[in-house]
């Protein structure tokens, strides 16, 4: 069936000397997977998706679907011959066509008989909960409904690969949350390979089988949500995947680093030596607070978030830490608390001079 194999893909906009939108990207997307391309805006994730769709021609590298070469600098199969589906950020539901006409379009292209078309459209509209909306025009639909028309339109032609470009970003928070579950269920039911682009890390974690974190056109890490969150390949990934305290530190022993008044015992990357400067990544939820029995810290800010409490703490040497704990604890501003860090949940990276990190080899 249809996995996607991307090899050494590069794309520049404008002059070749400018920074690449996508640089030397290699990615192996297995069939029947929900894969997310994750990164901040402008990182090259949408460019990658448009390269996969065939809207863009790569400057270097290849894209294969199954064993068919679809993109190379000198040869690009046009989008209409790829048999993929794509859902756009703005849905791109045609405003001059009814829901039925929108969904039936791909079947008309394929020359399907009228009766079969009607049957097929009815089935897919049922799948996305839009039965009864056939003769509506898009301007009579809500954002979420338009979104589902776009989905139905792509699904009705039974693509092997469905590309989704930030499809939830224009929806309000509640609907977005619900559509996440629907998308995930849909992918499991249809067995279609989903390639999903988003800048929202929580969306990526919730939806994906595999996440490819992209920064400045380069792949930083490709792994399961758990791997990417708990064992980020580098500082950039750690920083991007949710809140993190990044503290400068030093390797003090083969299994231990010191960052200010904190000393953490944990397994270190092999290439680090005693005395090396490092960055220590500590998630706010890896820190626990107590009245006594740990490293002392002063509460500078405190904020109640309902399901948990967030604190800004200052350590003795002035280091600041963000901490998230159960909302049951309450430490007022100005008091001194004792903190302890679950070192097993922390990560240590060699201190990079430039932030333009490349993926470290052991994570590939």
């Amino acid at each position, binding site marked *: *069936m249809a996995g996607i194999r991307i090899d050494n893909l590069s794309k520049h906009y404008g002059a070749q000397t400018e920074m690449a939108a996508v640089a030397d990207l290699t990615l192996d997307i297995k069939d029947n997977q929900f894969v997310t391309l994750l990164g901040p805006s402008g990182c090259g994730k949408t460019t990658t998706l448009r390269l996969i*769709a*065939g*809207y863009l021609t790569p400057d270097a590298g290849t894209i294969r679907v199954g064993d068919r070469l679809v993109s190379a600098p000198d040869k690009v199969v*046009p*989008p*209409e*011959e*790829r*048999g*993929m*589906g*794509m859902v*756009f*950020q*703005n*849905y*791109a*539901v*045609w*405003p*001059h066509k009814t829901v039925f006409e929108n969904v039936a*379009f*791909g079947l008309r*292209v*394929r*020359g*399907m008989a009228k009766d079969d078309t009607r049957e097929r459209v009815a089935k897919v509209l049922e799948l996305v909960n839009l039965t009864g909306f056939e003769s509506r*025009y*898009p*301007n009579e639909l809500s954002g979420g409904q*338009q979104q589902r028309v*776009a989905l139905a*339109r*792509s699904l009705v*032609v*039974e693509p*092997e690969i469905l*590309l989704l470009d930030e499809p939830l970003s224009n929806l309000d928070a509640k609907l977005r949350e619900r559509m996440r579950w629907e998308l995930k269920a849909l992918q499991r039911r249809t067995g279609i390979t989903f390639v999903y682009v988003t800048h929202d890390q929580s969306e990526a974690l919730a939806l994906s089988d595999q996440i490819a974190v992209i920064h400045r056109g380069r792949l930083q890490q490709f792994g399961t949500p758990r791997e990417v969150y708990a064992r980020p390949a580098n500082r950039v990934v750690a920083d991007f995947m949710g809140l993190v305290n990044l503290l400068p530190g030093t390797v003090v022993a083969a299994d231990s680093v010191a960052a200010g008044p904190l000393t953490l015992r944990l397994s270190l990357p092999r290439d680090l030596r005693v005395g090396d400067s490092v960055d220590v990544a500590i998630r706010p939820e890896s820190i626990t607070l107590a009245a006594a029995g740990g490293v002392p810290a002063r509460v500078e800010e405190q904020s109640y978030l309902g399901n948990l409490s967030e604190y800004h703490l200052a350590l003795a040497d002035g280091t600041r830490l963000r901490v998230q704990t159960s909302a049951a604890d309450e430490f007022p501003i100005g008091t001194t608390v004792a903190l302890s860090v679950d070192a097993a949940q922390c990560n240590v990276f060699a201190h990079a001079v430039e932030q333009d990190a490349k993926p470290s080899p052991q994570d590939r």
Partner: protein
Amino acid sequence: MQHLTMATALAAAHSATRSRLSLEHWVTGGAIVTLIVLIVLPLVSLLWGSIAAEEGPTFEYFQRAVSSRLYATALINSLVLGAWTGLFSVLIGVPLAWAVARTNLPFKGFVRFTASLSYLSPPFLTAIAFVNLFSPNAGLINAFVRDVLGAPWLIFNIFSMTGLVLVTVLHTFPYVYLLASSALQSVDASYEESAQILGAGKLRTALSITGPLVAPAILSGALLAFVNAIALFGSQAIIGLPGRIFTLPTRIYALFDYPPQYGLASALSLIFVAITVAALYLQRAYLAKRSYVTMGGKGVRPQLVDLGAGRWILFGFCALVFIVAILLPYAALIAVSLSKSWGLAFWKNLTLANYHFVLFDYDVTQRAIANSLILAVAAATIAALLGAMIGWIDLRTKIPGRRLLDYISLIPLGLPGIVMAVALIQFWLRMPVALYGTLGILLLAYTARYIPLGVRAANSALRQVDPSLEESARILGASWGMTMREITLPLIRPGLFAGWILVFVPAIQELSASILLFSSDSITLAVAVYNLYETGYVEPVSALAIVNMAIIGAAIWIANRLSGTKRDTQRMEVTA
């Protein structure tokens, strides 16, 4: 298994269309070639014609054009005409714009109607109407002043620069009106209120805030009025020639009397183009400054001034503009067309004979009407479709030089009608195809002249359509042609239709280029009116003029009706 059938169906659909796959290339290539033949080659011929002599390149024609008093006077007259017209367009257009956009003037719809009808009325017909009223001897109002009032010093001679400016301004003030009123409407009240809360009075606010914000638009409108005023052949011939006021268009026209002097005509044309382009360049520069006015974006709330009783004074001014620009010329044309012999006692012998004559006895009319309709419909259709293609190439492809294509399509804005005619003659006389004197060359002239309107309409329509609407059709398997037919063209249809009307209206009354290009077979409505006018029979001319107006009016009405039935597509705004 199902996957397999769908994939096979797609493959089948594409093997069927494989031969048409290059449709995209054919159409884009065709659009580019058409544009080159329409605009670039004639322009190159014009350049070449202005320096070509038997013994090689020469600047002789340019020297004669600038040194001879004949042509220098024409040049000066054109500039004087343009300058006065620009000034008076501001004096009329700005008060009207302010009244409509910023005051509680009553009957605003009436003012808007006055401005649009003044713009739509062919200026050469207005000129004929004013000749009937103000020619020194036979003009009805002059005759009334002289014979009934016994006040010959009140006689106004229309065959003068003043008369020419008057007639031209009636056509050009809407440019200033339109630009100024849209600028005034886009200045949010908050700008003015901020000045007022800081202590500035009404006058100070107007001078220091509102004025500077809308001044670029007003200047830009004045320059547009200038450019259009100097290009109008009809009124300058009808009013200027009897008054011995030669201008550039009428001088160029005279150079085509036997023996035609192509070199000199080309040189004079290029000087004409230089003036026009310079003015348009300034105009664009001013308009570009306007961008900060629209920064308020949506939900702009202009501040309305309560004029109290003063609004009736302002309304009186608007009514005066209506009387001079609409009522007088139309009433005069209708009255003349219905009278046996035009004069103070015309109402004693009313007749429809003039209409019978021009419609049935004068064998030119029917041919001219048919020709004009064919030409206007064809030119509007070609301009709209070509515009769509050029806009599409510019906005949706990465073809190198696509911006250049866009600029080329705007060149005709800088070419007065008569210059376009000279260029086409220069080019097609050299070609082995006998196009001169046929409807074909008129069609080329009209399409080339109005292609900028088609391109702009299509361009702004295409900008409203997000590329993803087309891309989503492509990824569903639709070919380029099918995407165009099913998605792009239906979505930009309202814009294309607007462009079609924008071209149709001036094309059906085109005179400046037609006057050099027509033959007895390919005569157009405007030329027929002009030729009949030259013979001196004012009554049938007026009848023909009214017929002309009626056809224009009917065409606009039908076009609006058609666009009305298409409104359901406009209702469905592009959600993307």
